[in-house]
C-alpha cells in the first residue's frame, strides 16, 4: 500500500500544483516541494528499515501452487530461495485481461526509487527561479514525470509497467516543448518519437508474451511473476526479447539509437535535463535487468557479446562526440551516452561483480551528470548561453561553482573517491575474465573521459574570461552560487563522495536481486 502512496502523492501533488497556480501564483513550487519531500520521508523510512533495520523480510510473491517446470529454463528454479522482494502490493484492475494493479519492491527498485526522489527534489529546487511562467503546469508535468518513473521502477505487472512507461513520456515531452530552449520543438518531437517507437515494439513483445504464457498455462495474465514461469521456444524468445530490447536500448541509449538524447538533454530546462539524464535513462537499464535477463536467459546469453560490443561502441563513440561538442549541455549529454555504455557492458557481462557495478553506475551517473546539468543551468541563468566559446575564466568570478564543477568533472571521469570509479571499476573487473578485449577497449574511455572533462573545465572555468564583446558582462554574470544552489550542489557532492567511499549499503541492498539474477547465468 505504501508503494501506492509514493506514486499517488506525486500525482496528487502535481494536480494540486496545477489547480492552485490558476488562482494563486507562487504556491505551486511549495506544493511540489512538499509532496517530493513527503515522498522522500517515506522512502528514507523504508531505506532505514531495510538497510539498518531487521533487514529484508522477504515476501514471496510467487503464485502459491508452485509450478516448477523441469525445463531448460533455469529461472524456473529456486523462486523459493530467499526472494529479494521486500514489499508486494496487488489489486485487481482489469481482471478480464488478467491485468492487475501490482507493485513490488526489491532492493534494486528501492535504490532507484530513492534516486528518483533525491533527484526529483533537486530538480524542483533547481527550477525554483528558472521557471517564471506557468509554474503550476510546469510542476504538474515534473511531478507526473517523476510519478511515471517511480511507477516504472515498481510495477510488476507488464501492462502496468508499459502504462507507466508511457505516462512518464507525455509530461516530459511537454516540459521540453514548453519550457525548453530555442530549438525545443524539434528536440521534443525527436524524444517522443524515438521513445514511442521503442515503446510500441515493447508493447508488441508484452502482448506476445501474454498470449504465449496464456496458451501454456491456460490463465491469461500480465503478472510478472507468473510470466516468469513460462517457457519460450528459442525463436519466440529471441524475437520477443528484441522487442523489449528495442524500447530499453532507445532509452539507455545505445548507439546508434541515441540521437534523441543530445537534443532532448540540451534543449530541456535544467530540471528536465536532470530528470532525463538522471532518471529516464535509468529506466532503460532497469528494464533490461528486471525483464530481459530473467525472461530470456538463453536468448540474452546468446546476444550478450553483441550487446556488450554495442555497449563498448557507445562508450567510445559517446566520449569522442562529447569531446567534439561546442555546446556545454550537448557535451554533458554525450557523456551520458558514454557512461550508459558501461551499464550495458556490465549488465550483459551477467556476472555478480559487474552487476553490482551497474547498480552503482546507475546512481553515480545520475548524481554526477545531474549535477553537471544543474551547473550548466546555473551558468545559463547567468550568461544566457550554452556555447563554450562564450564562456571562460569563470573560476575568477565564481570560485565556489568552479570547485564544485571540478568535483563533478572528476567524478564523471571516473576518479577514485567518487561513485563512478567504483562502478566502472567493478563493471570492468567483472567483465574482464570473459571479454578481455572488449574491456580493454572500454578502458580507453578512461582516457577519453579525461579528454572531454578537462576540456570542458578549461573552456568554462579556466583560461581568460570571454571578451565582453562576445558575452556582455551582466551583474548576474558575476555572482557566485547562492545558498539555494549551494544546497543543490552540496547535496549532490555529498552523495557522490559517500557513494565513492561507502558504497556497501547500496550493494547490499541490490545483492539479493543480483544473486537471484546471476544464478541463471552460472557458466
Amino acid at each position, binding site marked *: 500500500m505504501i508503494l501506492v502512496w509514493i506514486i499517488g502523492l506525486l500525482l496528487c501533488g502535481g494536480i494540486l500544483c496545477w489547480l492552485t497556480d490558476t488562482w494563486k501564483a507562487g504556491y505551486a513550487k511549495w506544493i511540489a516541494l512538499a509532496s517530493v519531500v513527503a515522498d522522500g520521508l517515506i522512502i528514507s523510512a523504508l531505506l532505514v528499515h531495510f538497510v539498518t533495520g531487521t533487514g529484508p523480510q522477504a515476501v514471496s510473491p510467487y503464485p502459491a501452487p508452485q509450478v516448477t517446470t523441469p525445463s531448460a529454463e533455469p529461472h524456473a528454479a529456486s523462486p523459493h530461495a530467499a526472494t529479494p522482494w521486500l514489499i508486494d502490493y496487488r489489486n485487481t484492475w482489469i481482471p478480464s485481461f488478467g491485468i492487475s494493479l501490482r507493485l513490488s519492491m526489491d532492493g534494486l527498485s528501492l535504490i532507484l526509487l530513492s534516486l528518483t526522489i533525491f533527484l526529483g527534489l533537486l530538480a524542483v529546487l533547481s527550477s525554483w527561479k528558472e521557471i517564471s511562467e506557468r509554474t503550476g503546469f510546469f510542476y504538474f508535468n515534473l511531478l507526473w514525470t517523476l510519478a511515471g518513473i517511480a511507477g516504472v521502477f515498481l510495477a510488476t505487472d507488464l501492462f502496468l509497467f508499459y502504462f507507466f512507461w508511457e505516462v512518464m513520456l507525455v509530461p516530459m515531452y511537454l516540459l521540453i516543448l514548453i519550457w525548453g530552449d530555442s530549438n525545443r520543438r524539434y528536440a521534443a518531437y525527436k524524444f517522443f518519437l524515438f521513445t514511442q517507437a521503442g515503446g510500441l515494439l515493447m508493447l508488441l513483445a508484452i502482448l506476445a508474451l501474454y498470449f504465449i504464457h496464456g496458451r501454456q498455462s491456460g490463465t491469461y495474465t500480465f503478472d510478472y511473476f507468473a510470466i516468469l514461469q513460462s517457457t519460450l521456444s528459442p525463436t519466440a524468445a529471441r524475437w520477443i526479447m528484441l522487442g523489449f530490447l528495442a524500447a530499453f536500448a532507445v532509452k539507455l541509449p545505445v548507439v546508434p539509437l541515441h540521437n534523441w538524447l543530445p537534443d532532448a538533454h540540451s534543449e530541456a530546462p535544467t530540471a528536465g535535463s536532470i530528470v532525463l539524464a538522471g532518471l529516464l535513462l535509468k529506466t532503460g537499464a532497469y528494464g533490461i535487468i528486471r525483464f530481459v535477463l530473467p525472461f530470456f536467459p538463453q536468448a540474452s546469453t546468446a546476444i550478450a557479446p553483441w550487446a556488450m560490443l554495442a555497449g563498448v561502441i557507445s562508450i567510445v563513440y559517446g566520449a*569522442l562526440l562529447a*569531446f567534439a561538442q561546442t555546446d556545454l549541455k550537448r557535451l554533458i549529454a554525450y557523456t551520458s551516452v558514454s557512461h550508459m555504455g558501461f551499464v550495458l557492458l556490465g549488465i550483459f557481462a551477467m556476472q555478480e561483480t559487474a552487476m553490482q557495478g551497474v547498480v552503482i553506475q546507475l546512481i553515480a551517473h545520475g548524481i554526477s551528470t545531474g549535477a553537471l546539468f544543474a551547473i550548466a543551468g546555473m551558468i545559463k541563468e547567468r550568461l544566457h548561453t550554452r556555447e563554450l566559446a562564450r564562456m571562460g575564466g569563470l573560476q575568477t568570478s565564481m570560485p565556489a561553482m568552479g570547485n564544485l564543477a571540478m568535483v563533478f568533472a572528476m567524478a564523471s571521469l571516473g576518479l577514485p573517491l567518487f561513485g563512478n570509479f567504483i562502478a566502472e571499476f567493478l563493471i570492468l573487473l567483472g567483465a574482464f575474465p570473459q571479454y578481455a578485449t572488449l574491456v580493454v577497449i572500454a578502458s580507453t574511455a578512461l*582516457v577519453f573521459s579525461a579528454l572531454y572533462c578537462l576540456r570542458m573545465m578549461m573552456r568554462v572555468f579556466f583560461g581568460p574570461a570571454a571578451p565582453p564583446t562576445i558575452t556582455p558582462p551582466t551583474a548576474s554574470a558575476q555572482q557566485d552560487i547562492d545558498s539555494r544552489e549551494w544546497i543543490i550542489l552540496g547535496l549532490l557532492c555529498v552523495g557522490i563522495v559517500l557513494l565513492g567511499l561507502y558504497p556497501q549499503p547500496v550493494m547490499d541492498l541490490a545483492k539479493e536481486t543480483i544473486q537471484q539474477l546471476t544464478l541463471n547465468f552460472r557458466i
Partner: protein
Amino acid sequence: MNELAYIPALPLLGFLVLALGGRRMSQKAVAITGAGSVCAAALLTMVLCGQFFGSGAVGAAAGHASPASVHYDLQLGQWFHAGALSISFGLRVDSLSLVFMFIITFVGALIHLYSTAFMRGDRDYARFFACMNLFVCAMLILVMADNLVLLYLGWEGVGLCSYLLIGFWYDSPANCLAANKAFIITRIGDTALLIGLFLLFKELATLDIAAILRQSPGHFRLGSPVITLIALLFLAGGMGKSAQLPLQTWLPDAMAGPSPVSALIHAATMVTAGVYLIARMHVLFQLSPLAMTVTAITGALTLLVAACSAMVQTDIKRILAYSTISQIGYMFLALGVGAYGAAIFHFFTHAFFKALLFLAAGAVIESLHHEHNIFRMGGLKDKLPVVYWTFLAGAASLAALPLVSAGFYSKEQILWYAWRAANGGTALWLAALAGAVITAFYSTRLLLVVFWGEAKTSVSSRPGRLITIPLIILAFLSLTAGFVEWPHNLLPVHLFSGFLQSVLPAPATRSGGETIGQLLAVMATLAGIGVGYQLYHRQPEIGIITRWQQRPLAAAIRNFLFGGWGFDRLYDTLFVRPLVSITRLNRADIFDQLYVAVVRAARTGHRLLSASQNGSLRWYAVGVLMGILFILTLLL
C-alpha cells in the same frame, strides 16, 4: 599502531578545512593550517620511524633477524566487496613505505614552510595549500595502501593534485594546456595499470598486496606470458607517472606550476610513484626477466635522452625538469637490474637535492621578477649568497661530486649494479656512465651561468628566512644523506640497504671491479664538470659555444635536443591532430543522417499521396475504379 591513520588524516583534515573555509580565512590562518598539518604529519612519521627502529628492523640490518619483514598493519574498515572481490581501507607500513613516507612528509613539510612565504599575496593562497595538503594525503595513501585499489586511489589522487597545481595560475591557457597534458598522459599509464589490476585479479582473485606477493611465485611460471604482460602493464603505469620514455613529455611542461609544486610533486615525490610501484611489486618483475630488461632499457634510454635535452635548455626550471626525468631514469635502470635498494636510495637522495634545486631556482626566479632564462641571469653569487651556496650543494649532489655529496653514493651504487648485477650489463653501465658525464656537465653549466659571470638582471627582492631555512636544511641533507650507505669496498656502512633488505632482496652480483667502477664514475663526474667549466666559465672559450651555434648541423642537433627529441611533435601528428580532426568532422553525429533519411522518405511519401488529393471528382472516381480493379485482380 593507530598513529598510522593520523599521518594521512592530518593533511586530509587540512585540505577539508581549507577547501571549505579557506576563502574566508586570513592568509596567516591558511598558512598555519596548511603547513601545520603537514609538519604534524612529519613529526608523527618521525615517531613512527623511531618505533620502527626500536622494533628490531635495524636488527635485521645486521642480517641475523628473521627475513620475515617487520611491518605495521591497520584496518580502517571495509571499502566495498562484491562477489569474490573485497576491498578494505587497509594501511600497511614496512620499511619501503616508511622511506617514502619520511620523504613525503619531511620534504613536504619543508616545502610547505617555503611556500607560506613563496606564495604570499597570491589570490588563491588557500586553494594552493588545500591542493598541496590533498596531495600529501593522497601520496601517503599511495605508499601506505595495503591493496592495489587503495593504491590506485592514491595514484589517481596525486595525479589530480598535480593537475590542479600545474594549472594553478589558470588564467593563462598555456598553463591549463600543460595541466591537461600532464593529466591525460599520466592517465594513459594509469589505464594500463588498471588493466594490469584486472589481469592480476583474474589470475590471483585478490588485490591485497601482501597476498599477491605471497602467492604469485607459486602461481606464475618464471617468465610466463601472463606475468610478463602484467609486469609490463604495471611498468607502463610507472612510465606514465614517472615520466619515463615514451610518456615523459608532460613533465617539462608541468613546470608551468609554481616552483614549490615542481619541487614537491614533480621532483621529490609524485614522479617517483612509478619507482615505488615497481619496487613494491618487485616480486612480479622478478618473475619476468623480459619485463626487467624492458625496465632497465627504458631507464637507460630515458636517462640519456633527458640528460641530452637538459644540456641545451635555457629555462632554469626546464633544465631541472629534464634532469629529474633523467635521474628517475637512473632509478628505473636500477630497478631493471634488480637493484631495488639502490633505486630507493637514489630516490632518497634525489628527493633532497632536487627539491633543493627547485626551491632555490624558485627563489632565484622570484628575486629576478619571474625571469626564467638562465642566460639573462648571472652574477648572483654575491647577491644571493645563501641561495648560491645551497644551490651549489644541490648541484654538486646532482653531479654526484665524489664523497662529499649524497648523489655520489646513490648514483655510484646504481652504476655499479648496472654493470655487475646479474641482469645488468656493460651496455647499460656505459649508458649510465655517459649519463653521469652529461649530468655533471649540465649541472656545472647551470650553476656557472646562473650564479657566476656578470649580472644581467637586477635583483628585485631578497628571499626571507622562511625561504632560506628550508634551503639550508635540504642543502645539508643533500650533502650528508649519502653517508648512511657506503660502497662496501670503502666502508662497511649499509644502514639503508639493511633497513630495506627485509622488503627488497639484494640483487645477485658478479663480484669484482668495484674500484675500477668507482674510479670510472668519479672520472666521469669530474670530466663533465671540467668540460662545463671550460665551456661556460673561462671567458675566451665561451666563443666555442657561439661558434657551434653558427654551424647548421650543430644548431639543428641543438634544436632537436632543445625540443625534447621531437616527441611532442611526433605525438601531435600521430595522435592529437587525427583525433581532433576526426571528432570535429563528426561533431554533427553521422548517425543523425540515418533518421534524416527516414524523415525525408516519409515526407516524399506524403507529397506523392497528397498530389492524389487534387480535388477533381473524376479523378476520385478513377481512383475508386482503380481500387476495384486492384481488388478483383487480387480475387481472381
